[in-house]
């Protein structure tokens, strides 16, 4: 875990992630400017740091209704505005970028932040960016696998010799600058099925598992399959961190939390995804056994601890800003995380 900058003795890490969506607030009916949204993200990272939150990450999306296409640039601003919180992408779409340029950016963010940068590399669930950036969708899988492998190689080797299908060969190439400690934690983004988790396990890289909704037990097979695949490929799974990522929102009572967050999820999904989020499925967030971490602080604590018990993961990353949640509400969430949720989670998961 050490080479991924994680100390399990300190308990499970708690982070915040944003996809960088830029959506109207359905309760106010208006959308803030992209400028304001970006500034609020930077401020949110500062508030998270002040509350003691371990990690903050920003996603890359090139669709309409998003503001963080240049996520590495935003992360560099966050690096400058903060001092100790870990910062990362979630995710960087490695398939449609040059791993060399991506690595240069993130190594630089690591130096600006003095050793706090990480990367999550994904392949995009939406594919408009293939046209935008000039890639063929038929290469979807191969682009990701080849570029992800090159990214890892650049991270591990100071002098790179490489050739492949989608990029000019590299001969004794140095990719500079190097991160503060020579390398960065690079996570593989994994979606719903165990098949995807198994690939991460075979590669022996940390897994970042996104979950939208459903019972905890539905995600357990992916976690188990990941560790088993790692073991089969000769890696020690106890040295490989797992992070989960999903919806999160807290308020005084569970019902109030559901009431406040649901319109954002539902209306935001309609715009970005073409369909709303079924209310029936969202209502089940009040059940301990489901992964949507929406509820009163006590409810959310119990849910996260239950997930920790099942998954044995090292980090949970909360998405609480989807669909135009107002900054006041975000501030309130951070406050409750800092005063109630974080202390409880650390208390129960840290080594005594």
């Amino acid at each position, binding site marked *: 875990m050490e080479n991924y900058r994680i100390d399990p003795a300190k308990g499970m890490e708690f982070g915040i992630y944003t996809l960088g969506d830029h959506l109207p607030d359905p309760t106010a009916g208006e959308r803030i400017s992209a400028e304001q949204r970006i500034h609020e993200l930077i401020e949110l990272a500062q508030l998270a740091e002040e509350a003691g939150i371990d990690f903050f990450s920003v996603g890359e999306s090139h669709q309409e209704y998003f503001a963080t296409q240049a996520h590495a640039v935003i992360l560099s601003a966050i690096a400058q505005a903060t001092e100790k919180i870990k910062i990362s992408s979630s995710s960087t779409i490695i398939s449609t970028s040059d791993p060399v340029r991506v690595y240069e950016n993130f190594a630089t963010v690591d130096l600006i932040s003095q050793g706090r940068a990480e990367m999550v590399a994904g392949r995009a*669930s939406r594919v408009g960016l293939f046209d935008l950036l000039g890639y063929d*969708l038929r290469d979807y899988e191969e682009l990701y696998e080849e570029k992800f492998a090159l990214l890892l190689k650049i991270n591990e080797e100071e002098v790179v010799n490489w050739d492949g299908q989608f990029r000019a060969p590299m001969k004794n190439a140095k990719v500079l600058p190097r991160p503060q400690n020579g390398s960065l934690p690079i996570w593989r983004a994994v979606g719903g099925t165990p098949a995807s988790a198994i690939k991460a396990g075979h590669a022996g890289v940390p897994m970042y598992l996104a979950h939208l909704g459903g019972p905890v037990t539905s995600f357990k097979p992916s976690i188990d399959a990941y560790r088993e695949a790692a073991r089969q490929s000769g890696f020690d799974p106890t040295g490989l961190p797992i992070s989960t990522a999903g919806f999160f929102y807290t308020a005084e009572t569970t019902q109030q939390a559901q009431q406040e967050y*649901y319109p954002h999820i539902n209306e935001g999904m309609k715009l970005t995804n073409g369909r709303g989020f*079924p209310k*029936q499925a969202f*209502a089940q967030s009040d059940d301990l056994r489901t992964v949507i971490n929406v509820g009163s602080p006590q409810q959310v604590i119990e849910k996260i601890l239950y997930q920790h018990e099942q998954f044995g993961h090292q980090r949970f990353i909360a998405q609480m800003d989807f669909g135009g949640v107002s900054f006041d509400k975000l501030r309130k969430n951070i406050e409750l995380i800092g005063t109630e949720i974080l202390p409880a989670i650390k208390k129960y998961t840290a080594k005594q």
Partner: protein
Amino acid sequence: MNIVALSGSNVGSKTRAAMDYTVNTVAQKYPETGVTLIDLADFEIQFSDGRHFLDYEGDTQYVAKTIVEADAIIIGTPIFQASIPATLKNIFDLLPQDGLRDKVVSVLVTAGSLTHFLIVEQQLKPILSYMKAQIVQDYVFIEEQNIHRKEITNDDVSLRIDRLVEDTVGLTETYMNMRKAQEEAYGF
């Protein structure tokens, strides 16, 4: 309520004839209901390649989006080689796994022979269930001989379509009310 009448083949005229009658019936009996006819013969639709339906362009995106936004879908389909046409299967493939959730779906089928009667039961309904549709159990099976030069010539067929429309609208209303009551009960 917003109904889409989906005519599932890009050749032939019998399914379209039955769908024209169906759309007229909806418009006459339920003037307050919006009904959109999508005849796949009128569109250039690409084969599904697995992307999200909003990431397609042109006709493909229009058709997928229109179906996703419907409250109810009346599917009309011929039977080709003892199955549904590829054009119709492609529509299902364009949509998300649960793309028919909270939608009522009813079916009418035109076929050259009675030997095809169970095709809907054995091949179409499993797809609809998998995609979470609320299926109107009875479907209207129309033999070729009941349509002549784009007109339905058998009163029994017309009356059965009338009942299918009634059941589709009735069930859609029922499910919408049921869902509304259920969602209100959640208290958020």
